[in-house]
């Protein structure tokens, strides 16, 4: 059980791709069980027993769960696919992974977490000797992560080697035996996991001194609370949407960072989208600066509310446009006269934000898809900030970006709140949520089940609140086959 870590751009993905036959190495060799191997294609690597689970789910969404699980090696009878047996076996296999669904359902009707589990189950079924997992937990919720770890330990006991890539240090310490740290395309340390403590690990990845890291704290947030003043800049009241939101109310005041706590599928992203006007509602109202806005994204932006979407690739960047065009995308109405884009104004904005957020790109003309995840996220943040917002809705602002960029983004959020912006912060990382927020509104099954203020803003109280909240009878009880159905619409 081997951990592979490093900042974005350290070369982890490239290394994995060399091991799995996607790229050929210019020099050097890959050895499998002591023998030198050269894979001409990913298929060859698979046949040799190296199986990879990528960050993004890599399956066929329209096919059934069972078909996906057995794709390419379906059980046969009389030369035809034995679908009864396939479904039965699929059900048994998935039960081990904590996924209780009808295997005949199309894969895309499952939540993202369950889909990821199917991908993992599939990878392991292919008689693997080495399983490479590239951030397998990024779309899983806590309970599913536990199940996954159970599976991983079982695999290890069976003598299967696992390469585990993750940005979440907690996980590494929980399951990994050894660790390889990479930086700038080179290995900087290989050691037993227990021999490297957390702060050393971070400093190795960043290439900075330990004292340096410590002064920055675990996150980029300062501990001091913000000056909260005045009437709410955003007041969402009694937001209703079938199966997703059940009377959620949130207020954000200027200078305040309001955290939205809760598990995957608790309605956090939906709340943010509803406030933004990007999600049709069955009931409820959103006031911005005291007046009710029209329920469209454009109207919300005009009123001063902007959102950083959760899924950077699917909902954030416009990949083939340049960095410049991506930054000013939402600001076009402001820099356009008689339909023509004012280039001077555009360059002024782009120049300012590229410097302020320290966006690393070869030029503003570079295509945004060529940037690293952290820089893409900064581009999106710039897109939000150049709209002169009063309130900022941040949905997982630091997901999948490296430690350095993470601290920078967190620092910017902090600074913005100090300047009087209202911020709504959604984060699956408890550290970030707790340290970053002045107040945390806790959601469960689309309802507000608690609010933490002052000293109560801590991981313990958050977990207690989540654990103690009674289940809601109207909206699919917990433990139902797919607790995160709310995520579905986004992925259709």
């Amino acid at each position: 059980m081997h951990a592979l870590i490093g900042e974005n751009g350290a070369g982890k993905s490239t290394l994995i791709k060399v091991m799995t036959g996607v790229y050929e190495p210019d020099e050097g060799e890959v050895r499998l069980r002591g023998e030198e191997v050269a894979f001409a294609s990913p298929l060859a690597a698979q046949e040799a027993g190296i199986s990879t689970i990528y960050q993004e789910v890599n399956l066929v969404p329209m096919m059934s769960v069972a078909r996906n699980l057995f794709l390419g090696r379906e059980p046969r009878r009389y030369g035809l696919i034995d679908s009864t047996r396939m479904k039965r076996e699929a059900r048994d296999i998935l039960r081990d992974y904590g996924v209780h669904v009808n295997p005949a359902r199309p894969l895309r009707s499952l939540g993202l977490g369950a889909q990821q589990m199917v991908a993992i189950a599939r990878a392991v079924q292919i008689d693997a000797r080495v399983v490479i997992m590239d951030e397998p937990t990024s779309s899983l919720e806590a309970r599913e992560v536990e199940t996954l770890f159970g599976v991983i330990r079982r695999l290890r006991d069976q003598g299967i080697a696992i390469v585990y890539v993750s940005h979440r240090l907690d996980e590494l310490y929980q399951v990994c035996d050894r660790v390889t740290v990479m930086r700038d395309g080179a290995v900087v340390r290989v050691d037993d996991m227990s021999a490297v403590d957390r702060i050393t690990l971070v400093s190795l990845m960043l290439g900075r001194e330990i004292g340096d890291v410590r002064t920055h704290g675990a996150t980029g947030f300062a501990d001091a609370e913000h000056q909260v003043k005045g009437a709410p800049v955003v007041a969402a009241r009694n937001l209703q949407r079938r199966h997703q939101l059940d009377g959620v109310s949130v207020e954000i005041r200027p200078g305040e960072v309001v955290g939205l706590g809760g598990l995957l599928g608790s309605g956090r992203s939906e709340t943010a989208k509803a406030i933004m006007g990007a999600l049709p509602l069955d009931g409820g109202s959103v006031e911005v600066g005291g007046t009710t806005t029209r329920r469209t994204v454009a109207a919300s932006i005009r009123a001063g509310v902007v959102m950083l979407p959760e899924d950077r690739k699917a909902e954030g960047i416009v990949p083939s446009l340049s960095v410049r065009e991506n930054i000013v995308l939402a600001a076009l109405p402001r820099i356009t006269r008689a339909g023509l884009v004012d280039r001077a104004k555009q360059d002024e904005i782009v120049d300012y934000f590229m410097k302020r957020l320290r966006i690393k790109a070869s030029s503003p003309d570079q295509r945004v898809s060529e940037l690293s995840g952290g820089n893409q996220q900064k581009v999106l943040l710039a897109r939000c900030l150049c709209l002169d917002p009063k309130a900022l809705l941040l949905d997982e602002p630091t997901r999948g970006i490296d430690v350095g960029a993470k601290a920078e983004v967190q620092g910017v959020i902090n600074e913005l709140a100090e300047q009087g912006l209202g911020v709504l912060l959604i984060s699956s990382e408890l550290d970030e949520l707790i340290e970053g927020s002045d107040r945390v509104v806790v959601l469960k099954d689309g309802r507000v089940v608690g609010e933490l203020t002052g000293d109560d803003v801590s991981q313990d109280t958050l977990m207690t609140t989540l654990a103690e909240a009674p289940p809601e009878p109207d909206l699919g009880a917990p433990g139902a086959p797919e607790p995160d159905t709310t995520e579905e619409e986004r992925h259709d």
Partner: protein
Amino acid sequence: MTDVAVRPTPAVLDRNRVVTWLQDYGVYAAIAVLIAINTAIKPSFFSMDNFRVQAFQVVPVLIVALGMALVITTEGIDLSVGAVIALSSAVIPLYLGYGPWLSIVIALVAGCVSGLLAGLMVAVANVQPIIATLALMIGVRGFAVILNGASAKSVTDETIGALGLDSWFGIPQEVWIAVVIVLVVAFVVRRTAFGRRLTAIGDNRAASALAGLPVKRVLVAVYIISGLLAAIAGVFLVGHGGYADPSNYGLNYELSAITAVVVGGTPLTGGRIKVLGTVAGAVFMQLVAATLIQNNVKNSYSQMVEAVIIIGAVYAARGRSGR
């Protein structure tokens, strides 16, 4: 994680470079080669007369292809353009009594209305573009034939005839107009907010919607523009032919237009547009047809040659995007 700098092996790099070059400039190079070959075989190919002959054939396709390129940039497709040509040609003789210009205006409005219908179906009712415009392709042509009657009607108006036949400074009027349209479209794509939105929506519609872009308005506008341009092509065809024949005008124009767009390097997956490439694509396909015809190659063979060219162009486009 996924954006780590990739260092492909030199061989791969070279191939990529060749493919990229082919995609960017291949069409222009091919046009030059074709002209050279033809002039070598028959020097009269490089003459004003031949230029006029080719121009009259290529201009309507080119104008339609520009609209098609805009639609394709939004990840859509407009199969109704051929039918709109027929509609525009059917409208002209009906209103010619009110003067040529009014009849032209009405023909263009008819094209816009058809485009509006397509746009509403795609943007508001969320019908897939290929289905929405397929329905229009069938329905609008039927409507055009009803308007006109089954037989062709002659149009002897001087103004309209001049648009299709006469020249300013030795160059056909419709070429001048086409040049203006190309410049306007290129300007809109490069310099206006509309052009920026167009590509953004085609590239990532969800992100565009979340950034507050007027997705529906842009989509509707794009189909209206496509309808308008097809109607203009219809007017030129009537002027050139001297009669209106809705059952035969514009047949297969949607396919010629798509071919020009693809050969010109605009990907069918949207998010990118090549205006000049589209022009070159239309000119190139016309030159290929002309070359084959002038050297007495049978029509069925020339169709096969065109098929090979389309596949080659799509392959080049794919080689670049599919890494």
